[in-house]
């Protein structure tokens, strides 16, 4: 049944957990829509013949509706629509809530290609390799205009916006190769901003990753040293932190300095000068590099310069990874009370 409906509706393969979930609603919605519209057309056409003009200028009865009929007319579509929206919103909440322990990949969109970087490994253009049956989270930003990361076989799409980080996640179920499109018009070769997700079975992915790390192509950081760099993203971030002078103000020993310490900063509940409390996630950390005064931590001065335009996207990603790696022994005590990415209960 599932397969028949999928083929009838020309839907692509169901290659992720979300695709399986969302397609059920898809079939239901499309079926109801088809039935309702065809029924309306048929009833109208039937009326045309049943009540066709038998003599010119005939008188017609005055037809009015009983309250029961009116109630039915309003409630039937309301019930159907509400059901759609309710189920749809529930699925959507599931979709925007990534589980813990995701494999994170940094995605950068630019005219007209996709760039991928792993926290502790290689980076690549156009093609990204992910494990099957493990959740993968994408942290995305754009270098120029708005793009939109779209994988039809996974039924996922997320706008990629310059100056902001957006995220999406998926859990691929079938090894294979799947198209990535850009879904937001971005210029001349918008239609050629194409990439590929290569899904490998878990063990194969691990082996692939090990191989990649061994032969890791050298990275050149843009801090001016010009040296080649080998190693994972966090180590790269440590080098950048030194090169950009971050460590002059941010300590690595847990003591507050000119700026807040970086130890245990990641996912710390932080009180801002505005009185608001936020959780220092990837988005916040990146934002603070680019626009340091938008969310200043309470008790600190506005002295940090903006790194907008100075840090390349992979470098920002490396810094975030470095901060994430700095965990003290008292991690349990400062961890937020409720899980940040608590997955919605699944049945």
């Amino acid at each position, binding site marked *: 049944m599932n397969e028949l409906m999928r083929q009838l509706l020309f839907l*692509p393969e169901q290659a992720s957990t979300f695709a399986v979930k969302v397609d059920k609603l898809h079939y239901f919605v499309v079926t109801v829509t088809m039935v309702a519209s065809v029924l309306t057309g048929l009833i109208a056409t039937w009326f045309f013949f049943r*009540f066709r003009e038998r003599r010119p200028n*005939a008188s017609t009865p*005055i037809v009015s509706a009983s309250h029961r009929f009116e109630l039915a007319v309003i409630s039937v579509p309301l019930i159907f629509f509400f059901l759609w929206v309710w189920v749809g*919103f529930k699925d959507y909440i599931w979709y925007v809530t990534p589980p813990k322990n995701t494999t994170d990949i940094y995605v950068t969109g630019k005219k007209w290609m996709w760039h991928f970087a792993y926290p502790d490994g290689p980076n690549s253009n156009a093609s990204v390799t992910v494990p099957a049956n493990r959740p993968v989270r994408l942290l995305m930003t754009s270098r120029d205009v708005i793009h939109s990361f779209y994988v039809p076989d996974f039924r996922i799409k997320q706008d990629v916006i310059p100056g902001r980080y957006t995220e999406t996640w998926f859990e691929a179920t079938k090894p294979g190769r799947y198209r990535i499109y850009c879904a937001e*018009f971005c210029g*001349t070769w918008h*239609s050629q901003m194409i990439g590929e997700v290569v899904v490998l079975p878990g063990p194969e992915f691990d082996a692939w990753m090990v191989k990649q790390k061994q032969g890791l192509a050298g990275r050149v950081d843009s801090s001016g040293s010009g040296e080649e760099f080998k190693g994972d993203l966090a180590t790269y971030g440590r080098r950048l932190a030194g090169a950009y002078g971050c460590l002059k103000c941010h300590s690595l020993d847990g003591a507050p300095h000119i700026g807040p310490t970086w130890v245990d900063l990641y996912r710390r509940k932080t009180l801002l000068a505005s009185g608001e409390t936020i959780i220092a996630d990837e988005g916040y950390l990146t934002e603070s590099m680019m626009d340091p005064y938008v969310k200043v931590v309470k008790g600190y001065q506005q002295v940090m310069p903006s790194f907008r335009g100075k840090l390349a996207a992979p470098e920002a990603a490396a810094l975030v990874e470095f901060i994430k790696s700095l965990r003290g022994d008292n991690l349990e005590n400062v961890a937020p009370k409720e899980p940040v990415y608590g997955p919605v209960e699944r049945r």
Partner: protein
Amino acid sequence: MAQLNVVNEELSLPKVHYINADRGLKSWLFTLDHKRIALMYFVLTTVALLLGGIFAMAVRFEHLTPGPTIMGANTYNRMFTLHGVVMIFLFMIPAIPGIFGNFCLPLMLGAKDVAFPRLNLLSVYVYAVGAALALYGMVSGGADAGWTFYAPYSLSTPATLAPVLFGVFILGFSSILTGLNFIVTVHTLRAPGMTWMRIPLFVWAIYATAIIQVLATPVIGLTSVLVAVERIFGFGFFDPAHGGDPVLFQHMFWFYSHPAVYIMVLPSMGVISEAVAAVARKNVFGYKMIAYSSLGIAFVGFFAWGHHMFVSGQSALDNGAFAIISMLVGVFTAIKVFNWVGTLYRGSIAIRTPLVYICGFLFFLVFGGMTGIAVATVSLDVHWHDTYFVVAHFHFIMVGAVIMGYLAAIHLWFPKMFGRMFHEGWGMVASSFIVLGFNATFIPQFLLGNAGQPRRYYMYDERFWVLNVASTAGSTLLAFGFIIILIYLIYALKNGNVAGDNPWDLKGLEWNTSSPPPKHNFDVTPTVDEDPYTYQKKGEEVEHVVI
């Protein structure tokens, strides 16, 4: 209704009517007569429709093969921009209010003219200037940002956009003036006895439209000017490179452009309300429900804009709220559909050209409307957003519903406007072409969207090929239908049979004067004493049916 309806047995055109009352170019260029202004709109918007259609066909033919077919990538991007801007700002928004609103609204209310005739004339000229500027800007500057002008692409594209944006701003003024005029007219110029609950439903629809025009249009005006100013002076308002927020642009853009959908579709719904009652010769079933649901759509439509931005990084809570509000629009529309079908029930239905359009309209509106709720269902929209599914959905509403209403209006009021009949046989042929061609064009596009082809794609993967060719084939049928209509209508202008004042014995006030009407509409101000859909003969036993 007053017994003014003298049936003209010889069926000849009245000697003096609004078209020949004054002669010379000047009498047209400086006319304050709402009927002549309607004809000016008719000519201008028909040109826009033809242009937009040509651009659409160019886009469709480009898609005959997966690779480059007849044009380059940049030309293609300009082509769909031209198609979108021309169809939406130059045709859809002004067409039905400009032509049939202007022509019929004062006639239906029993007024001599709209409230502010000079503003009415001004709105035509503002429209012409705005349209010329936008077209000139697009053709000379190579605008390629799509009709949505999303920042920061619209800020960084090398094309010249400022003239187009100012053109959109100016066109907005024309729309505001028209809407303002209609609201005041409905409030102040109703004939004696024309109570609010006796107003024809087309007028109700135009009234609801006018409210949106007046309240939403200034926002797009400001937004387009902001983008233009930013392009010229680099103000950084929407530019992330200067600290601006590109998503703010989307909010401001859709705050107008979502209600704009109702600016386009509500008048068409009004036409269908009239046409259904006219062909079925029957009291409108649920008059109040139709009238109030128009106002309901106008009101709720203001708060649904966020459903265009489900994947833009908007918060999940916002998305849920916008989904529920969008659903309400669907309920209001469903009420209307029930009432139209209910009006047909136990009618005395004449099989005439408007009937085909009514039938097409009902199917397209239900399918297009329900797929609209479907794309407002957040989780499904993640897959469908910015694919051909959305393209097909809004074409079902914009072409399916709006153009069916537009064509139904032409075939309903053509005899009143020009005093002559079109050829009924050709009318049926053309309408069949249109309805079939439309389905053949856009049903494959729904499937393309399901399959995952994003919109605005110059080249596409080969697996989308078959459906694209099917869509292009359908579009030629559709175009053919329009050409037939154009030909037989132009022929009918001079050579059609004389229609007579009221060829179908209808009850609205507009049928209560000669065809074409005299310059001052009515020789005697009509007095109204019943609702406009009373098709029972005086003194006859009236059958009441309750369902």
